[in-house]
């Protein structure tokens, strides 16, 4: 039985609150880095912070965060500038620039860290908390720092909301209406580094990227509005932070940071797969429905052509092989389409082998053939495309032309008299 009183234990409160505040900061700035397609730069910054911390420690000989955080901030920011410099001044692309900065800064950080560890300097132990985070050991001081940082970030984003929004969606336009985009970018990257420097103390170097990216990427599937997206991102990361922090208290050997990341990833993956409108499943179903509709319409159209070319319309009964002579369809596909069409009442089965169009089927087949021809005419007459080039295009467009478009086309072409296309 889970003991709820544990949540009111001050140490537990610090951890939960600290993780919560840190996730709020990270997901807020993460939304902007995500929209600017610079998510992985956050990963580089997280790694680049390590040498800054080590240098600050070597210079001051103390683990006081007032010295370490400026050091971390400095190299973190430097890494962003370097990625930009490398991509601007050489043919190296952004991905490689990020990997170079990330791995070299981190390598240097590890090297400095081990130099410090082997040097026997006093009180150096605990520096590696920055590597893996120390979420379970957050103190009231940390919580205060996280809280102030979160407030600062939210205040800054509130103040510059419109500017950042424009910068993320249309930088050129922002520049053209007189925004100082370089200054804004500098400010935004400063805020990003700030969020990462604090977050890293809770979850560590490697997993920091997840806190920046996952909430924003998940939120993107649920909305098209920026302020809603930020709100959802904060919500998702807060829930993950609380669950992650709780897990490590229910099972004390469990690390907090990785559990926060696991919950975040779970939200993200479930969203990618099942989200309404944009999710993989919904899109797959839509695609299948479209394919089925196209198949049925194609079969009806072929039936219609066949009916038209038969002199005696009373004897318009056809075998499946007649269809296959006109259109290359696999047997299984054809059977599937015919079955659906029979149940929808467009086609009737005469006897074992012969099928015929019902009245509605004839109407539908005529409609599709009409649209096909209409589009062909539009392409040849209006766009002057050679008649032998228009068939394939019409094959696809005939399934998506709406009645409104049909009307427009007929007006443009002056209500042409359309004869069925006979092959």
């Amino acid at each position, binding site marked *: 039985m889970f003991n709820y009183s544990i949540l009111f234990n001050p140490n537990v409160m610090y951890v939960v609150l600290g993780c919560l505040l840190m996730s709020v900061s990270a997901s807020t700035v993460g939304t902007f880095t995500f929209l600017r397609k610079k998510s992985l730069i956050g990963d580089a910054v997280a790694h680049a912070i390590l040498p800054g911390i080590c240098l600050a420690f070597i210079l001051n000989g103390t683990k006081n965060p007032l010295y370490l955080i400026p050091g971390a901030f400095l190299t973190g920011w430097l890494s962003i500038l370097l990625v930009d410099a490398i991509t601007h001044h050489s043919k190296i692309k952004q991905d490689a620039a990020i990997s170079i900065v990330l791995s070299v800064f981190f390598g240097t950080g590890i090297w400095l860290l081990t130099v410090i560890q082997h040097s026997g300097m006093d009180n150096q132990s605990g520096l590696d908390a920055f590597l893996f985070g120390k979420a379970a050991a957050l103190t009231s001081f940390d919580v205060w720092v996280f809280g102030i940082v979160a407030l600062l970030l939210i205040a800054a984003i509130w103040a510059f909301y419109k500017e950042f929004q424009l910068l993320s969606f249309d930088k050129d336009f922002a520049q053209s209406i007189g925004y100082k985009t370089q200054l804004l970018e500098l400010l935004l990257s400063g805020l990003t580094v700030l969020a990462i420097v604090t977050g890293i103390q809770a979850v560590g170097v490697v*997993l920091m990227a997840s806190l920046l990216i996952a909430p924003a990427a998940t939120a993107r599937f649920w909305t098209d509005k920026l302020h809603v997206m930020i709100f959802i991102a904060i919500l998702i990361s807060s829930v993950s932070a609380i669950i992650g922090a709780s897990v490590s208290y229910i099972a004390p050997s469990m690390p907090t940071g990785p559990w926060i990341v696991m919950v975040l990833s779970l939200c993200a993956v479930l969203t990618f797969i099942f989200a309404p409108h944009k999710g993989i499943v919904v899109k797959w179903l839509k695609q299948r429905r479209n394919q089925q509709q196209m198949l049925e319409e194609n079969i009806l159209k072929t039936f219609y052509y066949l009916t038209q070319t038969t002199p005696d319309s009373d004897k318009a009964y056809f075998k499946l092989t007649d269809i296959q002579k006109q259109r290359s369809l696999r047997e299984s596909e054809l059977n599937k389409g015919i079955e659906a069409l029979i149940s929808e009442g467009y086609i009737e089965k005469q006897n074992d082998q012969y099928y015929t169009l019902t009245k509605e089927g004839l109407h539908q087949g005529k409609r599709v053939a009409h649209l096909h021809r209409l589009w062909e005419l539009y392409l040849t007459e209006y766009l002057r495309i050679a008649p032998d080039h228009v068939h394939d295009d019409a094959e696809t467009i005939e399934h998506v032309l709406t009645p409104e478009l049909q009307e427009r086309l007929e007006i443009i072409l002056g209500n042409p008299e359309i004869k069925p296309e006979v092959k």
Partner: protein
Amino acid sequence: MDAFWIILTGILVVASSSILGCFLVLRKMTMVGDAISHAVLPGIVLAYLFSGERNSVLMIIGAAGIGLLTTFLIEFFHKKGNVQEDASIGITFTSFFALGVILISYFAENVDLDQDCVLYGEIAYVSLDPLLIGNIEYGPKAIWLLSFVFLMVLAVIIPGYRSLSLTTFDPNYAQAIGISVTLWHYVLMSLVSLTTVASFESVGAILVVAFLTVPAATAYLLTEKLKNMILLSILFGVLASVLGYFLADYSNGSIAGAMATASGILFGIVFLGKRLYNRYHRLTAVSQN
């Protein structure tokens, strides 16, 4: 003798990874390499649990499998789910890495692996784990493993050189003449996974990324030809591991970290040198006109 084994290990890691790195840099896929190097962690842990030893064949297979799974998932979310590629990479590798850390914590008593080792390895101890057949020592196990991987890389790259470069530079043309772009994509990624896993114990997950990217990118600054780029990147890689070893020896710090630092310094020198060279040439060209 230790120094010899350590430098040789570094060179073997660097040789495999800089060859593959050239293709990654040209395909703009270095971050996928980065993702794989992190994501193999749970594979390593699980294989270690089953086989009970490091450097086992099972470990290689397990981790290589996860590496391929990572590549597949990144592609899947990006192509089928319309997730931005950077986000798809970021989410996939952090999930696997988090899973790996959780597994290590959960099986802490059975797994003699720690997080530090995963991140930056310990190349200094390679010679402590020799390959024993009967009672005879045949040099460090890691050397055998890395040589095997290096030969594997060569055995795939040399016969597949034309296909690999075609699918890199002009995938549409390659597809048109019947070379499977997808197949070579996965072949390359399995080699990256293999190299990462084999190197993780000596240089760690993140420093493999340094060796995958930095020497190849340095070479890319200097040449347009793929063959020259591969040769140059191996040269830069070897130089970085030798320099790195002496830097670490001198400063008493992590050897793998120092090797990454050295490769970064080499990149910086070439980058600045190229800039100065270009500027000088532009100036002389202007003054001549």
